[in-house]
Every structure is written in structure tokens, then in C-alpha cells.
């Protein structure tokens, strides 16, 4: 493992992108920062700007309004970066798949602009913080 890979694995800064989630997954993401789970143990930090981010935490089905924004945020992120689709909505759009306003799922949108994107999926409605941490570990083991 090179120094660069080691550093990337030890300090993944995350940026939270909500593209039409119901807020449940967002609350679970914030749970990861609380004393019980404390993802800062692994060097993860919630950063304010996608320019600083290494991992995008995408929640929601990607509504038609949100698609251009998601595309833009992915393009703004400094590469290399990984994407974590959190929740059933972000993985497969769940029960909202046939809705008129759904344009997702988000991984499809991201694959359209970057076919080689690293995307990990964390299903659940909402997924437990343990599951989110496991997903992050799996995504980073690919890098």
C-alpha cells in the first residue's frame, strides 16, 4: 500500500448531499458523529465544501430538481473521491421508483458523467449507523 493510499484511507472527509431524502437517513448520518459511534476515530470529518471532500454521502431518490445539482456537486469534488449511496432511496429509489418526479437513482446519474466512479451502497430505511460505517469501510477497501 502506497503512502498516498494509506493517507486516503486514514482521512476520508465526507460531504453530505441530500437529493430528495425524507431526512431519516440524514439523521442517521449525523448519528455517526455522536459520541456513541464517533467516526472521527477513523479520521472522518464532515466538511462544509465539496472541494474538501473525499467521500460524498448521497441520500434520497434524486428528484428531477436535484439531478443537475448532484451532477454539479460530483464535478466540483476533487478527485479521487468515492460515493456512498445511503438508504433504499439512494440505492434503488425504493417505493418512489414509479413516481413522476423521480429521475434517479443517484448512482445512475453519477455513472453517466463518470463511468469509473467508486460507488458503495448502504441499503436500509434508514440504515443503522453501524451499516453506514461498514459501507464506508468497504468503499475504502476498494480504493
Amino acid at each position: 500500500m502506497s503512502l498516498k493510499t494509506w493517507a486516503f484511507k486514514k482521512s476520508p472527509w465526507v460531504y453530505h448531499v441530500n437529493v430528495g431524502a425524507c431526512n431519516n437517513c440524514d439523521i442517521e448520518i449525523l448519528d455517526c458523529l455522536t459520541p456513541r459511534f464517533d467516526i472521527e476515530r477513523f479520521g472522518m470529518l464532515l466538511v462544509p465544501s465539496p472541494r474538501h471532500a473525499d467521500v460524498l454521502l448521497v441520500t434520497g431518490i434524486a428528484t428531477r430538481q436535484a439531478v443537475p445539482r448532484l451532477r454539479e456537486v460530483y464535478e466540483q469534488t476533487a478527485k479521487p473521491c468515492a460515493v456512498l449511496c445511503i438508504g433504499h432511496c439512494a440505492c434503488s429509489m425504493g417505493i418512489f421508483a414509479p413516481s413522476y418526479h423521480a429521475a434517479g437513482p443517484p448512482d445512475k446519474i453519477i455513472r453517466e458523467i463518470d463511468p469509473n466512479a467508486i460507488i458503495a451502497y448502504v441499503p436500509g430505511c434508514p440504515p443503522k449507523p453501524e451499516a453506514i460505517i461498514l459501507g464506508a469501510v468497504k468503499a475504502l477497501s476498494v480504493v
Partner: protein
Amino acid sequence: MNALSTALIYVVGVVGTAVVGLLSKWIDRKVSARIQWRVGPPWYQPVADIIKLLGKETIVPEAARKTGFLLAPLVGLAAVSVAAAILWAANIRPELDFVGDVIVVLYLLTIPAIAIIAGGAASGNPHGVVGASREMKTLLAYELPFVLAIICAIVAKDNSFKLGDLVTTNVVGGWAVAGSVIAFVIAIFCIQAKLGLPPFDMAEAETEIMGGVYVEYSGAALAVVQLTRAMMLATLPIFLVTVFWGGFSFQSWAILGSILKYVVILVVLILVKNTNPRVRIDHALKFFWFVLTPVAVLAVIMSLAGSSL
């Protein structure tokens, strides 16, 4: 040979400040985590952050002025490196000082803030511009009481503008000691703002302006910014110890005392950071100009009275 050892002291100063700064950054994050009942990151975390950022892509936004945007962090890093070298030299070998090096260090410690104002304004991002404007107001707010506090120490220590004299001279007389203690407390408040730590982190307020002046920085440029901030975190407490607290000693057991002085100031900064919410920009300005500045003037008068007796 002599010139060689002098150059070696300067190099040790710069590298040592970078190492101490990154360690302080870890202490900051670890203590903050413990205050919030968390575990906190491992000791190598700031180093891993810097290495990771160096390996990432550096994006220059289309709307940005490329030269200013990329040059600003380097200017800040250079300024803080020179300031650190002068401070370490004054502590390791006090005879290396020159007349007015206190003033030089004061100016050098202002440059990182000015550089980041330029960088934020050049980023072409509205958040960056708002952050730059706030940083400028914060700079105007804290500079006045900070300079007054340093003047207080200079007056109390035989009107010497040399760092070496400030390290070796002792303050005598009740009034001068009282004035220096007040000035020291004021200076701690000012470096809290200088470092951009809460409650004075208006310029980078993550929750409202998304990192403010740093919003567009990525990759290697952000690594330089982080390194500059880490070095400031080491340099400013060293500056305060040098001016107010008898400097550092590197002989046998006195090293422990030196480390203790530094860690005490650092932990005070971290505790204030973790127990106070961000203030509004006008509140900060009022606090520095109408509360701290009059007290600082009072401290200067006390020192003058004490040293003329």
C-alpha cells in the same frame, strides 16, 4: 561555522514549528473529542490529512484569479515560517536578536490573515468573498488590543524592542506585573481570534458560509492552508510565551517547564473554543474595540507607572 549553526537554528525552527503545529492540531482535536465524550482521532491524523490532500487534484475555479488564488496560501506559509524561525532563534540563542524584531514578528503574523483575505477574494465564490470581508473585519478588531498588549510587555521590560531582551528581562514592580498579567489575558483572547477558533471563527463559519475563505481550496492548496494554520497554532503560543512568560529553556529539566507553558496556553485556547458559540461579527468588533482595547490601554498605563517608579 557560526553562520552554519545560525542557519541550522532557523531550519530547526521552521521544521520544529511544523511538527509541533501538527501535534497541536491533534491535541486540539483529541481534547475537543474528550470534552464531547468521544474518543477522537489517532495521533498521526493531521499528518495523514496533509499527505492525503497533497495526493488530490487541485481545482482552480473558472471564476477565480489563478495567480492570486494559488499564491495566497504560499505567501501565508512563508510569512509564518519566517516568524517561527525568528522566534525559535530568540529562544535558543537570545543574542541572535536584532532591534525591532518584535515588530517584524507582529507584521509577519498578520500576513497569513491578509493572504487568506486575498485568496478568498480571488476565489470568485460569493461565500469566499463574504468570508474575506469578515476576516478583514476580524483582523481590524483584534489587531489593536493585540498590539497594545505587546506594547505593555515592552514597556514593562525596559522599553526593549528585542525578543532576546524580552526573554531574559524580568518584570519588577507590582503595577508592572499586574499590567503584564492583564495584557497576557488580552493577548490570549486576541490569538483566539487570530487563529480563527470559535467563538471568533466568523470568517469560516462552516454552517453558514461553507468554510468562507477556504470554500474553493482543494488538494495541495488546501494542504498548504492546513499546514499554515497548524504552524500558526504553534507560533502564536510560542510568541506569547516568549514575550510574556520568560521564553523557552532547552536545558535538561527546564524542557518540561517549557512544554508545560506551551500546553497550558494551548489547552486554554481549546477549552474556550469548545465552550463558546460563534459570536456575530459586530459583537466581536464591539468586544475587541470597546471592552478589550480600553482594558489594554489601562494595562499599558499600569506598566508605565510601574516601570517609571
